[in-house]
């Protein structure tokens, strides 16, 4: 980009020496390109304030002592910060909920990505009517609102004896993650040169071998992207746990925030400490691998 810009500068600078109207316009244009965008900057910082204020509030309130909470000024950080509320949250089965969240996220994402890679591989390499019809069905699936299926899922999973189990959260999460995952992986695998597939066939490799030693290694960036996207969706999911589980042993983090809110009632700092703790794992990932996480967040939508 910078190189091409420089190239564009050359004729503009040359034009300045000739004092006709056209060149003056060019000179102005050049200045327009380099003049700092004050309005844009102001807008950016305004939005910064809108984003940062609630986050700042969450963090400082979570370390505010509960005594005197209602009389203290909420805008200022507490003079005597305390981690008592964090201890309280950690003692309230937080690690159980964390383990549940980790379990459903890992299982859902691994299964989703695995079956989707297989499907995408077939969709790219086979043109049978069945495979084509499956792909069209997956595309249609992108438009199914998850919210509309909670009642039938509640009915089906109750009938199957899976109500109030972690499987009741994992299974539909996989079902709903598959369409987009397949679509993105298909678009990616389509770019693998056909010669590579053909040389695998010449070498006598089975489909399975082709999948494991060619497709999966080459589509790693796409797998990471969809993995992150799906993991965030499952990790932050609220509706499935709300409807499909009941007992505290099966509770996941987002749902636990809601129940903490009921339990701790007016202990606002404790509720917000729970919010911080539940976000911490993803925040660490955000700090460590922001680029990957951010590109995973929009999955295939950003272009």
């Amino acid at each position, binding site marked *: 980009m910078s190189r091409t810009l420089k190239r564009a500068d050359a004729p503009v600078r040359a034009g300045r020496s000739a004092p006709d109207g056209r060149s003056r316009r060019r000179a102005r244009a050049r200045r327009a390109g380099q003049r700092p965008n004050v309005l844009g900057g102001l807008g950016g910082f305004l939005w910064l304030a809108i984003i940062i204020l*609630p986050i700042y509030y969450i963090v400082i309130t979570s370390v505010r002592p509960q005594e005197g909470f209602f009389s203290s000024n*909420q805008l200022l950080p507490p003079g005597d910060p305390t981690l008592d509320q964090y201890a309280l949250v950690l003692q309230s089965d937080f690690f159980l909920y964390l383990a549940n969240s980790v379990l459903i996220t890992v299982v859902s994402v691994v299964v989703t990505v695995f079956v989707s890679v297989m499907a995408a591989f077939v969709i790219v390499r086979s043109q049978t009517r069945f495979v084509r019809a499956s792909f069209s069905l997956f595309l249609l699936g992108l*438009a199914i609102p998850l*919210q509309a299926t909670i009642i039938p899922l509640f009915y089906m999973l109750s009938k199957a004896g899976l109500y109030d189990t972690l499987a009741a959260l994992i299974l539909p999460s996989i079902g709903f993650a598959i369409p987009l995952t397949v679509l*993105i992986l298909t678009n990616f695998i389509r770019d693998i040169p056909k010669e590579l597939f053909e040389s695998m066939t010449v070498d006598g490799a089975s489909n399975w071998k082709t999948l494991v030693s060619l497709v999966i290694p080459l589509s790693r960036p796409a797998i990471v*992207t969809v993995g992150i996207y799906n993991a965030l969706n499952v990790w932050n999911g609220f509706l499935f746990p709300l409807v499909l589980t009941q007992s505290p042993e099966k509770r996941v983090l987002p749902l636990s925030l809601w129940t903490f809110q009921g339990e701790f009632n007016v202990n606002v700092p404790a509720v917000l400490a729970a919010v911080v703790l539940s976000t911490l794992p993803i925040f660490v990932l955000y700090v460590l691998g922001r*680029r990957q996480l951010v590109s995973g967040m929009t999955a295939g939508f950003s272009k």
Partner: protein
Amino acid sequence: MTITERVGVAGDRHTGRGPGSVRGGGTRQGAVPRRKAGPSGWMVAPALTFFLTFAIIPLVVALYLSFTKWDAISDPEWVGLANWPTVLSDPATLHSLWLSLKVIVISWLVQTPISLLLGVFTAGKQRYRGVLAAIFFLPLILSSAAIAIAFKAILDPNFGLAASVGLPFLKQDWLGNQDLILYVVIFIIAWQFVPFHTLIYQGGVRQIPASLYEAAEIDGAGRVAQFIHITLPQLRYTIITSSTLMVVGSLTYFDVVFVLTGGVPGSGINILPIDMYVKGFSAYQMGEASVLAMLLVIIGLLLALGLTRLGGFNKMNSQQEGL
């Protein structure tokens, strides 16, 4: 760097254009007689099974349940079409549809300009913009439950932030006032989802060829002119993609509203999904709630199809044709 971007760069004219491209690739490959090399269809079966069982079949079951009377405990009892006229003529349904429509339209009007401008802003090369972008995207890592709980505390009229700011007009019962809560919810939706759409627009802006701007600068076009005559037209398919996700997202928005209001009727923000949940899981009228679920599916599909018909997903690459 995203997948579709790579697809575009790789220059395969058949990729990224939806179902038709499978066939397109097929005809091209037809030149090479390699039919036997294709893997067998069974490998698509596991994904298909999960998807059918937990996404497609529930739609059929929802349709079935909409013809029954079911209290969530005993077995559903067939009542034929009885639920449909009951629900469709219920003023509460019409009210929730009206509220959902308001949320969709106002959310779009609020979020699109902000996301678009922030997308252009964060796509800039300046270092401070990169730093700001890192903070802008923070709401993406918070769960809906976390966001709702935080705003519930912030907006509390007695001990929330307003009490400490010292501006009396901020001291409203934001969540209890029926006239205000709609706008509060729309603000929180924007807070939560503008970062996502900013990302989409940022990706779109970065795809616009720099040569267009260079040409415009030579012609003496200023910043605003460049935005109107280059950025906006170049982003038209990005706008459609983002709008589709935004509109369908607003229609099905549930988590934050539920946590903010406790999902009780009469909160003043009974949008369609909340109405459905309350009817089903609070009033145990699962049959009638299933009618609302079907409405959600039908409206969602119509909106998604209508918007993508305008362009969107199928034309992701074609916006740069002729360059």
